[in-house]
């Protein structure tokens, strides 16, 4: 128990009640923080981490429910007690308080003699819960380190329960309905009779269980597991329950032969692996040092997303099919291996001339463009291919594979679905990056970056309704540097946090100025992958919002579809926390990635942004069909639609007829600096002076 008294945060918009609470509770010895609305309260919470929160319900800027939800989203690892101040007879608000995550409620008018007691109790309960949680976390951690799990088999109901580690070790997903047979489904066939024999010995009265078995893991590897158990019997002597532990002993079992086997063999596709490829290529290069030889490294574009959508086993079957196809394609004497997950390496030996390679590449492309058929469905894939050549690029196996890999990376960076030959500039790419990197650091320090704003208009009235914030970098010597160049660089060198923060701050402050001038515009802010995955994103946004009067719903955070789908469960979690602050969420570049509708529906999003490429294609009937489908789908999901890249009247007419909600594009305005934007704005609309003042009270 801590000796220091707990700090309490009081959030109430009524100054008299706030003062009363502060006085009463500080006279009881608690240090007090106080805030006059939910937004202020949330900021104080994030900065000071008080041990208990007293929260009023009705407040003008962010009410008590929203602030409570936001604190719960922010503080996922501790459960700080939040006591809600509600009117005695208001059952509905008491219910809503619990739904929002309040620990308890205190009725108004406050019973002053009971208040300190209630707080003392709530703090003690929280301390006990915290201690319990810490012990549980420590225990989980130790068990994870030791690769140790516990399990329990309820014999009567044939149900297996246990720690997460147990299910990971046995490679079965946890399911409350799991029975013994399901639990053992990954155990090697040969080992099952032994387990059943041990169990039947238990039912004959033996109380201890000890044994080991092998589990075939989904990646094809074998896991060695030792298990211990203790049986419990009922009064009649019948077996009731077994509980025990399991431990992963694979490392002890890595016998010489196993190592040799795994060293050269890829269990999934049956192809040689990276080690084998290196040895084979080395040998070949030594024996044929002057002959022309090509090394191709190839991988599937967006394989990770495909795996996410269709599941691991789909990905596995796809790789097997691809391996088969590659094997068939090659001439005698050529060689194919699987280097890593979806990366394959082809070695084309003894080429007479380069055009021989060109025709082989053509053949390769034609064959790989054919659909892969899995579960009676056609799947079209695209590939990124990198090529290095011996002897001109090098004569060392490892270097050649690395060069081909670098070229493959390059092909991927250019958008995938293409083939690149290795060139020495790819190595030099690093030094060019260095120049750009230094320039970028300076630019950030000197705030050379500028935020431009592209207008968005209401599709029906064509009146301004929002803007997308777009970063522009004008370097004094290098000129205009496109975001597509410096954003990925900022991500790799860890500057994206600062950069994103700067843009967010500029954009929100700008939107706030417009808002206070009577233009409640929604500001769209793009989040990059790294930025979106940062843990303190929620806090960053809150800190920026806290210094403004801008309603949070006027901040629209945009993430691309492919980013949203790259880790859907994490996306959902992160979006929920941003949503808890009240922000709006858009899916950007919609239609260009692979979306799972089920996931899309589960994300707390407000808007889909149709990618400009679809709008450009509206002159074709196929393009029209795609856009109509996206809009219809958005309507069905209750989402708002923004179309980007509108340039012509025809595009506008079509999108208007289909019920698109918001337009963005050169037809309405280019991205422009804040001052120009304001001029554009005032030309089109008079400020609405009543609305901000009303909310800003």
């Amino acid at each position: 128990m801590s000796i220091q008294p707990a700090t309490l945060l009081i959030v109430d918009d009524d100054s008299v009640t706030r003062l009363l609470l502060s006085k009463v509770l500080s006279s009881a010895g608690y240090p007090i923080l106080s805030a006059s609305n939910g937004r202020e309260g949330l900021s104080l919470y994030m900065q000071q981490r008080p041990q208990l929160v007293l929260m009023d319900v009705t407040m003008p800027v962010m009410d008590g429910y929203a602030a409570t939800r936001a604190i719960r989203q922010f503080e996922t690892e501790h459960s700080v007690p939040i006591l809600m101040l509600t009117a005695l007879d208001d059952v509905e608000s008491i219910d809503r308080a619990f739904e929002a995550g309040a620990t308890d409620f205190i009725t108004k008018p406050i019973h002053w003699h009971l208040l300190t007691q209630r707080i003392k109790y709530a703090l003690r309960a929280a301390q006990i819960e915290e201690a319990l949680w810490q012990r549980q976390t420590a225990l989980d951690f130790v068990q994870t380190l030791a690769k140790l799990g516990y399990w329990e088999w309820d014999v009567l109901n044939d149900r297996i329960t246990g720690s997460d580690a147990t299910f990971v070790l046995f490679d079965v997903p946890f399911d409350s309905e799991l029975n013994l047979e399901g639990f053992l489904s990954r155990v090697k066939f040969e080992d099952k009779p032994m387990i059943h024999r041990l169990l039947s010995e238990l039912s004959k009265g033996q109380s201890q269980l000890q044994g080991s078995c092998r589990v075939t893991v989904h990646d094809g590897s074998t896991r060695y597991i030792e298990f211990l158990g203790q049986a419990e019997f009922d009064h009649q002597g019948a077996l009731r329950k077994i509980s025990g532990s399991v431990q992963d002993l694979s490392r002890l079992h890595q016998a010489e032969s196993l190592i040799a086997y795994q060293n050269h063999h890829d269990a999934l596709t049956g192809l040689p692996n990276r080690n084998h490829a290196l040895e084979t290529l080395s040998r070949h290069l030594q024996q044929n040092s002057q002959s022309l030889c090509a090394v191709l490294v190839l991988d599937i574009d967006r394989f990770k997303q495909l795996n996410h959508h269709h599941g691991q086993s789909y990905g596995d079957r796809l790789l097997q099919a691809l391996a088969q196809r590659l094997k068939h394609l090659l001439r005698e004497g050529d060689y194919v291996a699987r280097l890593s997950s979806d990366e394959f390496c082809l070695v084309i030996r003894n080429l007479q001339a380069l055009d021989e390679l060109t025709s082989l590449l053509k053949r390769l492309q034609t064959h790989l463009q054919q659909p892969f058929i899995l579960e009676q469905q056609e799947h079209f894939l695209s590939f990124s291919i990198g090529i290095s050549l011996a002897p001109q690029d090098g004569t060392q196996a490892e270097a050649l594979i690395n060069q081909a890999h670098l070229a493959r990376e390059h092909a991927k960076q250019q958008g995938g679905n293409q083939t690149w030959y290795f060139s020495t500039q790819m190595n030099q790419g690093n030094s060019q990056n260095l120049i750009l990197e230094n320039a970028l650091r300076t630019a950030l320090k000197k705030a050379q970056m500028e935020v431009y704003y592209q207008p968005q208009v209401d599709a029906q009235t064509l009146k301004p309704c929002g803007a997308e914030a777009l970063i522009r970098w004008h370097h004094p010597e290098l000129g205009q540097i496109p975001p597509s160049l410096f954003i990925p660089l900022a991500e790799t060198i860890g500057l994206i946090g600062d950069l994103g923060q700067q843009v967010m701050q500029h954009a929100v402050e700008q939107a706030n100025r417009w808002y206070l001038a009577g233009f409640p515009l929604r500001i769209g802010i793009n989040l990059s992958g790294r930025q979106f995955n940062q843990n303190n994103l929620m806090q960053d946004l809150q800190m920026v919002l806290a210094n403004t009067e801008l309603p949070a719903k006027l901040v629209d955070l945009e993430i691309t579809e492919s980013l949203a789908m790259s880790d859907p469960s994490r996306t959902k979690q992160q979006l929920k926390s941003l949503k808890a602050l009240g922000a709006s969420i858009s899916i950007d570049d919609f239609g260009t990635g692979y979306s799972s509708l089920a996931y899309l529906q589960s994300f707390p999003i407000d808007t889909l942004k149709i990618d400009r490429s679809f709008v450009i294609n509206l002159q074709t009937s196929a393009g029209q069909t795609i856009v109509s489908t996206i809009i219809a789908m958005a309507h069905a999901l209750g989402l708002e639609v923004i179309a980007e890249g509108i340039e012509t009247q025809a595009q506008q007419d079509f999108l208007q007829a289909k019920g698109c909600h918001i337009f963005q594009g050169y037809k309405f305005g280019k991205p422009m600096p804040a001052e120009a934007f304001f001029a554009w704005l005032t030309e089109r609309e008079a400020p609405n002076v009543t609305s901000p003042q009303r909310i800003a009270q």
Partner: protein
Amino acid sequence: MSNATSNATSDAMSNLSSIDTNNLALLHEILGDDLQEILHAFLATMPELIGQIELSIQIQDADGVQLHAHTLKGSSANIGASKLPILCAALEESAKQGVINENIVALLPPLKVESEQLKTELSQFLQSF
């Protein structure tokens, strides 16, 4: 409460004192002389809030009436006022309909009368310090 007319509400309360003295005495016990500061703060904000309510009624802003009546209800109840919170609750309930109706307009005069009464009683109490 929303259907109660202002007359019925104020008639039923006419025999009550404006302050629950037990509650106030308890606060005095807990806070000692600090209570003075709080009561002064209340006496300063009460007219402001009533002014806001009156203004909101004038400009037909039911949301404003609801918000300010709610605030006054809470702060007056917390310092031990007994009648004012009930009048505020009636106002708040009526305003939830979203329009300024005659119920709301009729509640304003008794609210002002009661606030004057409360002010007198609190001032007397303050002299006991």
